[in-house]
């Protein structure tokens, strides 16, 4: 095999080789992921809620009448008593204000996803960079970033949110950004830094420096890629945390959101039905079960990813 012949069309073959490698490692990880079972369960739950979220606009457009089924301003005119128990027209009944619970549930799923994923993305982007930079440079940079992390960890998030809601009004987007910043500069950044510390002392980092690689090269080519598995894992955990925080905050009525699972429970509570679970179960269970399921599903996926990226945890 002569090199000349093999690399005559180098550019495309380089790309092809990289693509093959990427798909191969993805496939390997996927096989390992499938073998973990808890991950598959988690993924199934996520897929179920993703379907609900995606189906809502379609149903609203073609099946459900807007003035009846709108999750915020709709009213079930045909029901004589609100909240109405489940019926054919309203599979999960209506809430104390006469709105369709299923529609609310599906509408909220979309914003829960948006919130969770955005918060996770912000957290992990900040956390990875903070961790890598702090570990790589050390010294003053590290000291400043880590003191900032201490502040973020000590920050009473709920109180801050109360103040912020009063001042500017906090919706899903703002909440995601706040959670992302607090967790990214805080706990997640610290965890990723401790991982990065074990990467920056590797001889391959020294080899890259000896080759003439600058700070940016070393950080983005050698440190960050070796943090990504852990970052991804923390991304899953952040999703869980974000959804849960949102539920708590809207239950307390601290968020300016139009509709969410937490808000559904809040409405139930403020109408005085919270303690009558057996009688008015459709007011409590769908929303609270959804919060529990979606939170735990991301957690399960995270746990199984942990097994995929940490060979030590793998059962042989």
């Amino acid at each position, binding site marked *: 095999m002569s090199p000349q012949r093999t690399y005559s069309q180098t550019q495309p073959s380089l790309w092809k080789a990289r693509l093959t490698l990427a798909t191969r490692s993805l496939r390997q990880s996927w096989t390992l992921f499938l073998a973990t079972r808890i991950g598959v369960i988690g993924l199934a739950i996520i897929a179920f809620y993703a379907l609900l979220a995606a189906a809502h606009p379609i149903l609203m457009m073609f099946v459900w009448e807007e003035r009846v089924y709108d999750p915020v301003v709709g009213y079930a005119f045909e029901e004589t008593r609100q909240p109405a128990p489940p019926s054919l027209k309203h599979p999960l009944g209506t809430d104390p204000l006469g709105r369709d619970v299923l529609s609310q549930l599906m509408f909220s799923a979309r914003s829960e996803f948006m919130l969770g994923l955005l918060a996770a993305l912000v957290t992990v982007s900040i956390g990875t960079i903070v961790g890598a930079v702090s570990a790589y440079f050390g010294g003053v940079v590290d000291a400043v970033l880590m003191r900032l992390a201490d502040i973020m960890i000590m920050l009473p998030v709920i109180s801050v949110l109360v103040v912020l809601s009063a001042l500017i009004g906090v919706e899903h987007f703002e909440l995601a950004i706040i959670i992302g910043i607090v967790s990214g500069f805080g706990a997640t950044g610290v965890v990723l830094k401790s991982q990065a510390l074990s990467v920056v002392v590797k001889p391959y980092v020294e080899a890259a*420096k000896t*080759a*003439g690689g600058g700070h940016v090269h070393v950080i983005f080519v050698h440190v960050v890629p070796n943090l990504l598995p852990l970052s991804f894992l923390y991304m899953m955990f952040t999703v869980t945390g974000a959804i849960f925080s949102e539920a708590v905050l809207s239950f307390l009525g601290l968020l300016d959101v139009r509709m969410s699972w937490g808000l559904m429970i809040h409405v139930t509570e403020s109408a005085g039905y919270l303690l009558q679970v057996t009688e008015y179960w459709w007011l409590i269970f769908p929303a609270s079960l959804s919060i529990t399921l979606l939170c735990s599903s991301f957690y399960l996926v995270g746990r199984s990813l942990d097994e995929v990226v940490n060979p030590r945890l793998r059962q042989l």
Partner: protein
Amino acid sequence: MTQAPDAPSRPLIHAISLTKRFPVSSGWFRRDRSFAHAVDGVSFQIQRGESFGLVGESGCGKTTTGKLLVRLVDPTEGKIVFDDGEDEPTDIASLSGRSLKSFRRKAQMIFQDPYESMNPRRTIFDTVAEPLKVQKIGGAIERVERVSEMLGMVGLTPPATFLFRYPHELSGGQRQRVAVARALVIEPIFIVADEPTSMLDVSIRTGIMRLMEDLAARLGISYLYITHDLAVARYMCSRIAVMYLGKIVEQGETEEILHNPKHPYTQALLSAVPIPDPSAARPPVKIEGGVSTPIDPPPRCRFYDRCPVADAFCRDSEHPPLEDKGGGRMVACYKA
């Protein structure tokens, strides 16, 4: 590589009183009080095409010295004059920015652990091509060709079967060959080899040693060869320096030192090497105790605590200077 350095009078590398102290209690708010004297006033020369060995036990400062020469570590004091015969002689210790980056084309390092010296997420191609990439040499096509050529040169044939594999798919010996290829790909003239064979099996080790010798002869490369193994140094280096606690205690032609060690530490080191002959009896090693701490050592001879021949004069004097005892042999001992 045993050829004697004759023609060029100016050495490729001339280290002058090289010193590196690491602060021990480092902290942002605290003031540093104690220092570990990792390398303490070390001077030596490396001729063009020569392989110079640094020998010593762990913690003697040999790796730090190697890293100083490729500026992975910045010296606290001292100069490293680098003279490649093309440009003006420069002090590596004072380089920065662009001039440091262009120095890096000329000096590379091979690391001890073939399992840790390659990023596990990068292919062999990425690893070997990295110096070309950061030095912006060649386009994608030339890089693939150059890397393939290097892989062939270090005996990984056919190169195409190795390009897109990951380090974990290779054996230790193969990985160390990749490390050699990475160090050579930008055609350096000086390489610091930090125990490149110590983690390899014996049957693989010789192959790597040969390869490094052949390439040095073929490409005119000088080595600083760091090892704890006197036997390996014997095969790889024409001259060696024995280090103890940051100081060079003896320096000279390898064969002469091995046959007639003058410093008591070198003598102890030699007599401690096991002999692969069950009927041979080794003389007992004369020194006691372990290596003392490099943190703020007293000014007297570093070897005083363990030395079998030390006396009151050694105790009350400064660390002995490295003196020429004839025939290019330098020894730092009052008693030698």
